[in-house]
């Protein structure tokens, strides 16, 4: 029961009690009314703000592909399957994102997160032009992820991810997403 503070004073015929008593009654009504009014919103705000306590889990590196599936030259897109923690669920082996893998010389591999650093759209690889292009706001990126056109809206190059080629040609990527719209590469 919210009671407005600046309520008009009582009409003269109602003011039978002395002013002092009247004032205490009003003050008590406002104070108690205010106190009971805030309990529920405060309890709710805690739950509302609970997501602020959640930290992203850094995924261990995951097997994304093998060298056999990735000939030298053009980049190829691969889904990243990992254990996803979603509130109460912990689900192994589900898609958490995707990467472009490009095989370089000496069996080295470059891994780029497919998400555009500008606003988070899924960038295309345009084979004809040989570069990456974001279908949302036309940012373009070269094969190594650098910004191609200085007028691109993206604030930074595509996000490169740590990649490791193990033993018999397994490509392991440490997958991570980064905050969109800023110059620095800040993990989310």
């Amino acid at each position, binding site marked *: *029961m919210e*009671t*407005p503070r*600046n*309520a*008009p004073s*009582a*009409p003269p015929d*109602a003011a*039978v009690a002395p002013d002092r008593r*009247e004032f205490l*009654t*009003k003050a*008590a*009504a406002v104070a*108690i*009314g205010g*106190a*009971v009014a805030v*309990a*529920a*919103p405060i*309890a*709710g*705000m*805690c*739950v*509302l*703000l*609970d997501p602020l*306590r959640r930290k992203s889990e850094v995924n261990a590196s995951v097997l994304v592909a093998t060298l056999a599936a990735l000939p030298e030259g053009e980049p190829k897109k691969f889904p990243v399957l990992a254990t996803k*923690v979603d*509130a*109460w*669920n*912990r*689900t192994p082996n589900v898609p958490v994102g995707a990467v472009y893998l490009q095989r370089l010389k000496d069996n080295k591999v470059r891994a780029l997160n497919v998400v555009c650093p500008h606003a988070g759209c899924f960038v295309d690889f345009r084979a004809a032009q040989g570069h990456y292009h974001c279908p949302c706001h036309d940012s373009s990126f070269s094969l190594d992820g650098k910004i191609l056109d200085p007028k691109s809206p993206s604030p930074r190059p595509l996000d490169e991810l740590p990649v490791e080629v193990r033993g018999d040609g397994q490509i392991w990527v440490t997958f991570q997403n980064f905050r969109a719209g800023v110059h620095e590469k800040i993990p989310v």
Partner: protein
Amino acid sequence: MKTLLDWADQRTGYKKLLHETLFENVPGGARWRYVWGSTLVFCFTVQVITGLFLWLAYSPSSQTAWESVYYIQHEMWGGWFLRGLHHFTAQAMTVLLVIHLMQVVIDGAYKAPREINFWSGVVLLLLTLGLSLTGYLLPWDQKGFWATKVATNIAAITPFVGPELQKIVVGGVDYGHHTLTRFFALHAGVIPGAIIAFIVAHVYLFRKHGLTPKEPRRRPDAAFWPDQVLRDAVACLAVLVVVVFLVVRHHGAELGAPADPSEQFSAARPEWYFLFLFELLKYFPGGTEVWGAIVLPGLLMAVLAAMPFVGNWKLGHRFNVGFLWVMLAGVGLLTWRAVKADRGNPDYAAAVAAAERDAARAIALARSPAGIPPTGAVTLLRTDALTQGPKLFAKACASCHRYDGHDGLGVQPKDKITASDLKGFATRAWLAGLLDPAKVDSPHYFGGTKQRAGKMVKFVKEDVAAYDAEAKAELPKALAALSAEARLKSQRDLDQRDTALLAAGAKALAGAKLGCMDCHKFHDDGEALGTAPDLTGYGSREWLINFIGNPAHERFYGKRNDRMPAFGEEKQLTPEEIGLVADWLRGEWFEPALK
């Protein structure tokens, strides 16, 4: 500031509205008996606010409802408090509704020209009960699931349209996703919307006709502000204090084990204020429930609705007040009888204890590092050895075996013990008893089986009893080594500490001195399989699963097997069930880390 307020007033006229709200006349001055309507508005406001915040985190589907409520209650910041506030304010609201109704009837506030206002109040009462009914299911725990099933099955006995009505309410032939989405839409949308509309009408009509003063008037008339406002605020504070006390005492609201249609739930009871209806149904024999569940409550509501007319008669008001008291006494009596019947019923107490155990276990498993699988929390208890092991043991094993003298669930089976007691199976202590000449033919081991007259009992009673000092010293070491084959969780520390002892024990076990290898096989030593159970990996998970699968296999008792069925080969138990029994007997289940 004043200019700004004037600007707003010219465009909205809020000052007049505020003035009307605050300076409504209270005939005879402020009184405590007028606070009940305000406490109800307060409760409803708290429910709307807490409900909206709960909505932010609730997910209505049969794989996520319990899970999201668990997450609110146990993982989210202050979630238990928010949920508890919603839960207990709902209960306070029911109590306050009854008090408000009593006050209105006793003070004669239902009489002309206030009939419509009275009826809108009766509708509000029913709508609020509808909120309780629909809200009870939303956590999708055993309690809400089974109690609400009763309610929707009662809907099915409604004359003419029952089965169709039930299908529409349930959202299909059986409980599932659409039951939750429907109940949630009713609980958070349809019913609250209707309540708001009726509150607006109720308060409008109340203001139109004014307050019904309680005669005699003790003081001159006064304005609503500030004296009555203060009383209302204090009453709301009192309600809040009681609610918060209950929330803190119960640490939020109860959350039972996840709903499982295959799992008995004898502790199913409706919320306490529906207990009288629950009790009432006991007095209507099969086929006549419709009288107790629909006709009788309908008639009572009809009498309630007719009160404004009845009140016009000479003795009508007295009848109305008397009727309410009698109805309240009847509800009280039925509630008391329901509570008393449960109190004196050990089966109900056991069911409640089992429900609480399952609930605590489900929550412990949900908090485990493995988390809740995408199939939902119902899988947690289904695949938990600690929960399922005893049930399976009681069902499949306890007609012969015992576990610590009972059937696994703490009940004494009606059949006598005719096979070993498996509590602590394969531990050092259990094996020491097996090799004790005084115990080997007791019911605890081979006493009830045909092996009582077999070679092992004879061996223990004669050869082991006649061991020389050296053999007597070797025996415990050998048993420790044999026990270590099981790799029991309970002996992990012991086994790690005693490496030297276990090495000596394994040597002794395989040696000629003790005589074990005359019949048994132990790794590369001893007799070929077929004469006695294999001691290699004795009591390990793999050994036990295969044993339960087929004890008459040459690796185990072979032809000497007594009555034990081949649970696996005869498909009496599934491989998963055998695994759960084996894990439970071996004490292998998830234990939450102590904080």
